[in-house]
């Protein structure tokens, strides 16, 4: 194969693109290396080197799971389900008005009300439910209520965000049609908007419920009740064989809730 020197050879990218890419990659690598050195400044490498031994040690302690402990887990499991379900309920109830206030086509005032509603959504979404639980346990004391309220507060942002996007995507001609019959604002929402967003609403709620089950299993770590409370006490007594049982229960709960949520969403959407 000989090519004449003056015939252009096909290349994947132009040389300018090539340069830009190299510069981009260079900065990314440099930044990562910089972050890595900064992060591992205080790491004690002896502990890291020791990890395989620790892992086998913990694995050895975990392995015959203490199945008898399962009997003490039914009550926390019920509590966990309640935290997730009641929390979702609270979150959804508050999220509905917030979503209507945040959606561009239903908000009473684009300039004043909409930003406030969006701020509520952002605040609720950017704080993890574990942090909400941490705050609420400090404020209203440890127990199920703190967990329920934490899950509720976290769910508001998620549900309201997806719901207001659904409201903004509705078919406006139906709204027009209902309005032209002389319907009031409330009737327009009731007859033209709600039927259109109802399937999305149920889908979002069940999806959030599924996530909430996942999150409520660990809320107990900070004292908000449920399975996490047992996890915390087993961890602090180093009862690793109980920890295994709790992990398996959490895994089973998560798998079941995911299955239920997938089923319901397929039926609804």
């Amino acid at each position, binding site marked *: 194969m000989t090519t004449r020197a003056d015939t252009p050879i096909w290349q994947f990218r132009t040389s300018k693109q090539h340069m830009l890419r190299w510069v981009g990659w260079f900065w990314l690598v440099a930044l*990562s290396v910089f972050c890595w050195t900064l992060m591992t400044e205080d790491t004690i490498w002896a502990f890291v080197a020791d990890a395989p031994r620790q892992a086998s040690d913990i694995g050895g302690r975990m392995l015959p799971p203490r199945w008898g402990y399962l009997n003490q887990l039914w009550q926390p499991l019920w509590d966990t389900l309640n935290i997730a379900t009641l929390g979702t309920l609270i979150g959804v109830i508050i999220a509905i008005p917030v979503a209507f206030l945040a959606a561009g086509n239903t908000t009473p005032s684009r300039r004043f009300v909409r930003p406030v509603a969006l701020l509520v959504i952002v605040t609720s979404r950017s704080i993890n439910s574990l942090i909400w639980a941490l705050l609420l346990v400090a404020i*209203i004391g440890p127990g199920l209520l703190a967990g329920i309220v934490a899950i509720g507060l976290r769910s508001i942002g998620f549900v309201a965000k997806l719901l207001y996007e659904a409201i903004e995507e509705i078919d406006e001609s139906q709204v027009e049609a209902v309005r032209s019959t002389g319907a009031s604002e409330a009737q327009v929402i009731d007859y033209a908007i709600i039927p259109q967003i109802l399937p999305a609403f149920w889908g979002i709620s069940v999806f959030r419920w599924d996530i909430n089950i996942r999150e409520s299993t660990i809320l107990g770590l900070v004292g908000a009740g449920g399975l996490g409370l047992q996890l915390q006490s087993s961890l602090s007594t180093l009862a690793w064989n109980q920890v295994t049982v709790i992990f398996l229960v959490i895994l089973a709960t998560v798998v079941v809730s995911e299955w239920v949520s997938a089923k319901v969403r397929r039926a609804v959407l």
Partner: protein
Amino acid sequence: MTSEVTSSRTWKRPPVLLKDPRWRWTILLGSSVYLILAISSVEVDWFRVYEGLERGWRFIQGFLTPDFSSRWRDIQAGLIESLTMTLTSTVAGVLVSVPIGIGAARNLAPAPVYMLCRGIITVSRSFQEIIIAILLVAMFGFGPFAGFLTLTFASIGFLSKLLAEDIEDCDSAQIEAIRATGAGWWQVVNYAVQPQVMPRLIGLSLYRLDINFRESSVIGIVGAGGVGATLNTAIDRYEYDSAGAVLIIIIAIVLVVEYSSSYIRRWVQ
């Protein structure tokens, strides 16, 4: 009933989701029974809640008048840990998940590799970050290194799954065309698959960066470094103004990361 309705010519709203009234009543009855049971099993110490309200008010005041200065060194250390952890774990997660994602794509990988990679993805996705963090802190000791490993592990499941799905959705005509030129497997991946999935991979990595920052502010609660540990300490000391400052910083960074990542994603795609 139908004859009366049609004779008086009043319109009745059709049921939206459950067409069968028996199903509607069963679900309504079942959920009310569950609600009564659930609510009655939640024990609330209302006196403690009442006592806590004053504390809650102090927290809101602390949130409105945040104190950035008195614990600034702790906050800064926590933030640096969180941010470096976020970046390094996302980079490491992407590096590991690209081969796993390719291996989990049915159109590129042979069956045994496919099963292995899908297995890795399932394991990584079924446990949530906090639980992984607990185990890794026990193995690798306290500090951001355990957090880095946790976030990397969680990123692998997320990114490989979505990348594999994206590769499977690739336009097979382009793969065919490259293969017809006599290209080997590597060349097919490089010239046919990579250009198709690259924009989406960049988008997913940025999305994961966003998620990793949110998670990095939480896993500190179980000892895996980051700003969560600072927050936990501030709340334990009842320093609500410092806690408010940490929360405001978290919300601000989440907002910046979210908006810039969605901006870059729109620009890339």
